[in-house]
């Protein structure tokens, strides 16, 4: 306990918001075993001892703790009493509930594909569809957004790919392979080019089509 008091008081004395990152570790008492290995001098900036009034408001740092009695007296201001009865966010990883991924409330993006390079565009589209740019990403749940691509026939491609990139498909029968170049497919069904590109970048065999 002596170590606990010493480190918290030195951290407490630095009045910047930035020491909050180090504060976060010392507060839950079940992590107090860390303190023995703490390079305390490296972490907290040495400063004069401050009274309990600090420059930042209580509202900005919402720290949650299940059991307020474990927290020492002078740090209780950081804990919101209302959160103490809520879900335990420090011991249970967040998993989306049904209301977090309703289809009707997802964002829709509209992308104009004129003169964008095919692969780079498809890459960012796939990231948004999968939901990999969100903090709430979960592999088992489709948290991604919907993407609408406009002007798909004007998508650009570098080098000689217009004439040399081949799109193959097979009907399943022997000798049933059909090959097309990028140009021919663009004449026939231009949307399929972007669909093919994005589908190749998404996980296969799953409900995220």
């Amino acid at each position: 306990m002596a170590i606990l008091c010493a480190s918290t008081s030195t951290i407490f004395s630095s009045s910047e918001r930035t020491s909050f990152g180090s504060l976060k570790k010392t507060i839950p008492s079940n992590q107090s075993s860390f303190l023995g290995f703490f390079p305390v001098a490296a972490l907290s900036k040495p400063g004069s001892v401050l009274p309990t009034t600090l420059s930042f408001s209580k509202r900005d740092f919402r720290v949650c703790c299940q059991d307020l009695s474990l927290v020492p007296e002078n740090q209780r201001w950081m804990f919101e009493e209302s959160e103490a009865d809520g879900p335990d966010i420090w011991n249970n990883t967040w998993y989306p509930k049904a209301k977090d991924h309703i289809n009707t409330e997802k964002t829709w993006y509209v992308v104009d594909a004129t003169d964008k390079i095919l692969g780079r565009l498809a890459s960012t589209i796939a990231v948004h569809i999968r939901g990999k740019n969100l903090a709430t990403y979960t592999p088992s749940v489709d948290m991604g957004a919907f993407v609408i691509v406009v002007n798909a026939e004007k998508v650009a491609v570098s080098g000689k790919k217009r004439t040399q990139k081949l799109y193959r498909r097979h009907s399943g029968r022997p000798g049933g392979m059909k090959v097309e170049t990028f140009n021919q497919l663009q004449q026939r069904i231009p949307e399929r080019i972007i669909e093919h590109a994005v589908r190749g970048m998404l996980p296969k065999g799953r409900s995220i089509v």
Partner: protein
Amino acid sequence: LVDVEKNSLFASSFRGAHSRLTRTITQQRIRALVSAHQDRDMKKRDFCHLWITRINAIIRGVGVSYSYSRLIRNLYNKQLLLNHKILAQIIISNRNCLYMISNEIRK
């Protein structure tokens, strides 16, 4: 419970013959326990993977060419011991806090 009954109680929710025939019960029980043992370690890996993906997703939004790997490098340089679980939970509950931490670390 007698040992035989304990055995079949373990496999009582298995499908088909795996819950009815004694020999297959013992075999399937062994396989189930092995899976449980392996997956206890895989669970730790899976969650770390999930936290890393979540952290990466948000950190890349901070600025051009800022990524999870750079964040971790900065964390280690400043000797900040926050683990991935806590970082991921901070991101979900209180994202400004993470931006503050990352800005402070980048200096």
